[in-house]
């Protein structure tokens, strides 16, 4: 990222709360949606948890970022991808034992805000059937609407690789299009 900072990013670097509020409004929703399209290795860590950790990390590392507020999205998604990888590796090291469902019934269930912006279930099912790179690219490009450059920055790959994976992912999904009918109900 060699472009200069725009005003919003420059203010965010100084710790301006309003700048951070604006950045959060622009990117927090699609970050949570994109994280929810990725398979979660640890069921105890929701997409919202990972998104919050991503924002905190971004606030610490904002001085290493140079670019506009739109390029900020790709950088932010890249942080989320790396943190997700950390969670995945950590969950593999710390495997937990399954708990009896009767034990869980004693605890109260709090309904979260997820259903308000949850991705359609058939979309999640279709994305889960794709290879990881194609799933991430289709999730960034189609589900949350990132452009090619931001997607490349988020996934740490080139723009050409983004286009290739995007094309292949969409083709695979089109081949499985009839399968989505049962999940669309």
């Amino acid at each position: 990222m060699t472009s200069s900072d725009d005003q919003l990013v420059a203010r965010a670097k100084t710790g301006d709360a309003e700048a951070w509020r604006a950045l959060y409004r622009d990117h927090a929703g699609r970050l949570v949606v994109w994280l929810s399209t990725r398979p979660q290795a640890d069921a105890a860590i929701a997409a919202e948890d990972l998104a919050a950790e991503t924002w905190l990390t971004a606030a610490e590392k904002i001085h290493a970022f140079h670019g506009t507020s739109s390029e900020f999205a790709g950088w932010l998604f890249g942080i989320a991808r790396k943190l997700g990888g950390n969670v995945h590796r950590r969950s593999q090291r710390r495997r937990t034992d399954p708990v009896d469902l009767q034990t869980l019934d004693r605890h109260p269930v709090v309904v979260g805000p997820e259903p308000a912006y949850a991705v359609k279930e058939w979309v999640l099912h279709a994305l889960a059937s794709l290879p990881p790179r194609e799933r991430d690219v289709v999730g960034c490009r189609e589900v949350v609407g990132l452009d090619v450059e931001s997607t490349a920055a988020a996934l740490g790959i080139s723009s050409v690789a983004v286009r290739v994976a995007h094309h292949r992912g969409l083709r695979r999904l089109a081949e499985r299009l009839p399968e989505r009918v049962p999940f669309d109900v």
Partner: protein
Amino acid sequence: MTDRPFRDELRAVLPTLEPDDVFLAQLSARAAAGARPTGPGPVTGGWRVVLVPVAVAALLIGVAWLSGLRPGGLAEPSPAPAPADSTRTSAPGTTTTTTTDPASSPLRSLPAGAPGAEPGPRVAAGSAPPAHQTGASGGPAQGVGDPGAQGQAHAHGQTSPPHSAHAGGYPHDPPKHSPKHPAQHPHGPDEHAGDHPAPQAHQDRRRR
């Protein structure tokens, strides 16, 4: 490639999330904390610039010192002294009982420059002081290359292994005296002139 309605169905409805005030304050505080430490950066960098060469120099000095302690280290002389010793001990008519001298092994580990551990070339030329230190009464202390002193010291050393003339005098000699040495002698006769104890050894044997 794919139909547009299919791609439109993939698109999720993106919510506009409002940050919590506490969380927003935390973000601002972290960003502001990251903005402050611009001064100490070069200081720590300069500290590292000084530390790295000092560490490397200390490492090199330590390695050099350790290699000086070891018998096969940097203080090892040229391989010329080794044949000189074998020439001396395997002279015709001498016995080969001093091949494993226990008194000489501790001195082999002394560093170069320590008492009793002299550099190889001087030892190879035949130095008298070791013979005196070990009790070998081989006559007056001669200078380097004196065949008489060298021969007597070596003859006494052969008869009494604990007081070998090799002890302290030949710290780098290999512990072997091969009987087939004369055939292996690769040097000319002048190279170790004065090292051969043969005349003096024959005299001692005749006295006995």
